[in-house]
């Protein structure tokens, strides 16, 4: 398998250009599905390769639980710099699994606690909470999908903008955006090079919900106004965790996109455009990742099979 076992670890870099361009140049639905798919595939391949490296790394450790044949020189020779790479793969794999586990636990904890908080309310689709802080979000699963919105958020919007807000949140729920978001988060935990894709998908899901909401209420301008008014009303409210976005931030970009022309629903852009090239680069990267990891897995399995006495 040689050097090829390392490549899926760095091939996520080929998806950076498309992560950067997708939000502006692709239809948000296409961008979300595509980036989530590429991200998940690359994360899977990179984890498979880490496991392969880990097997080689563990087999050389004294007192390991693996069959003796696995520390065969031929197995070790299949990975260049196996002493370093094999041993480095062990903590890396531990970090990957811990990170993914924490993400999953946190995901379920937030969702469970948010549903618990709403237990005392009637089970309507929209839960309105008397709260001086403006917020609105889609809360998936639980007893039922719900849209949670505070009275302060409703107070800063007109009736058409409120319809836009509810339409936006319903799209999040209907399109199961939380699954896309969870997948890219897990992928970013599996390989830090996939973090730009996580950020990009967070933006494209919002854009997707914006565009669908605009169709539902029949006016892109209304959705733009709703976002703008809500954002201006809630500035100064403590919103942690998202302060690190580079200017211009995602909110003005969303509003500007809605004020501009509607994005074309075209699944695959022409090759000789920036986004077309970026897309092909990412697709090639994903394909190579899959090939290299599959090839490495088969090679190692055959080597191990040959080296195992039974």
């Amino acid at each position, binding site marked *: 398998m040689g050097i090829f076992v390392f490549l899926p670890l760095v091939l996520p870099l080929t998806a950076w250009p498309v992560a950067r361009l997708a939000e502006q140049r692709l239809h948000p639905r296409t961008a979300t599905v595509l980036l989530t798919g590429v991200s998940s595939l690359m994360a899977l391949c990179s984890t498979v390769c880490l496991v392969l490296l880990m097997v080689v790394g563990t087999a050389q450790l004294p007192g390991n639980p693996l069959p003796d044949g696995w520390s065969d020189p031929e197995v070790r020779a299949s990975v260049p710099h196996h002493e370093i790479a094999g041993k480095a793969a062990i903590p890396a794999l531990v970090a990957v699994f811990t990170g993914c586990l924490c993400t999953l636990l946190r995901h379920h904890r937030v969702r469970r606690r948010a549903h618990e908080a709403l237990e005392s309310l009637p089970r309507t689709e929209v839960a309105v909470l008397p709260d001086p802080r403006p917020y609105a979000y889609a809360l998936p699963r639980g007893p039922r999908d719900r849209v949670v919105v505070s009275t302060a958020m409703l107070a800063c919007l007109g009736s058409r903008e409120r319809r836009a807000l509810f339409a936006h949140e319903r799209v999040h729920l209907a399109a199961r955006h939380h699954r896309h978001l969870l997948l890219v988060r897990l992928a970013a935990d599996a390989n830090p090079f996939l973090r730009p894709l996580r950020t990009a998908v967070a933006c494209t*899901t919002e854009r997707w919900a914006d565009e669908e909401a605009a169709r539902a209420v029949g006016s892109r301008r209304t959705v733009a106004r709703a976002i703008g008014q809500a954002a201006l009303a809630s500035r100064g409210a403590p919103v942690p965790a998202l302060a690190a976005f580079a200017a211009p*931030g995602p909110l003005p970009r969303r509003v500007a996109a809605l004020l501009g022309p509607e994005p074309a629903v075209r699944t695959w852009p022409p090759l000789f455009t920036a986004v077309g090239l970026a897309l092909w680069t990412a697709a090639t990267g994903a394909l190579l990742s899959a090939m290299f990891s599959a090839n490495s897995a088969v090679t190692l399995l055959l080597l191990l099979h040959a080296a195992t006495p039974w």
Partner: protein
Amino acid sequence: MTEPDPHRRRRAQGALETQVLAALNDARGPVTAGWVQEHLTAGLAYTTVMTVLARLLAKNAVTRRREGRSFVWVSASDGAGLAALKMHRVLDGEQDRRAVLARFITALPAGDEQVLRELLDQAGDEG
């Protein structure tokens, strides 16, 4: 001696507020702070209960009126007020809630505010 973590302290306060409000919601009518203290499982000091009630009063989550020499307290809202307080705790407690809660709006950095206002003016003019 170290300073208590302000974040942790706020969460603890939030927990007390939800407990006190839940007790008031269970009460059949206006009750005194002493009643609340007796019906809390946490075994809080009377002064603590008073502090929590005062904080809830400031948030308009409870109302009070004078009856004889002391106040009686009523929960101002139905389940919604309690739900809002609990939701507050979820939002405060989780720094990284983006994965679950796709929010309508995110933080608006200072520099973006001007950009956004100009865009909105544009939307208002043409729309």
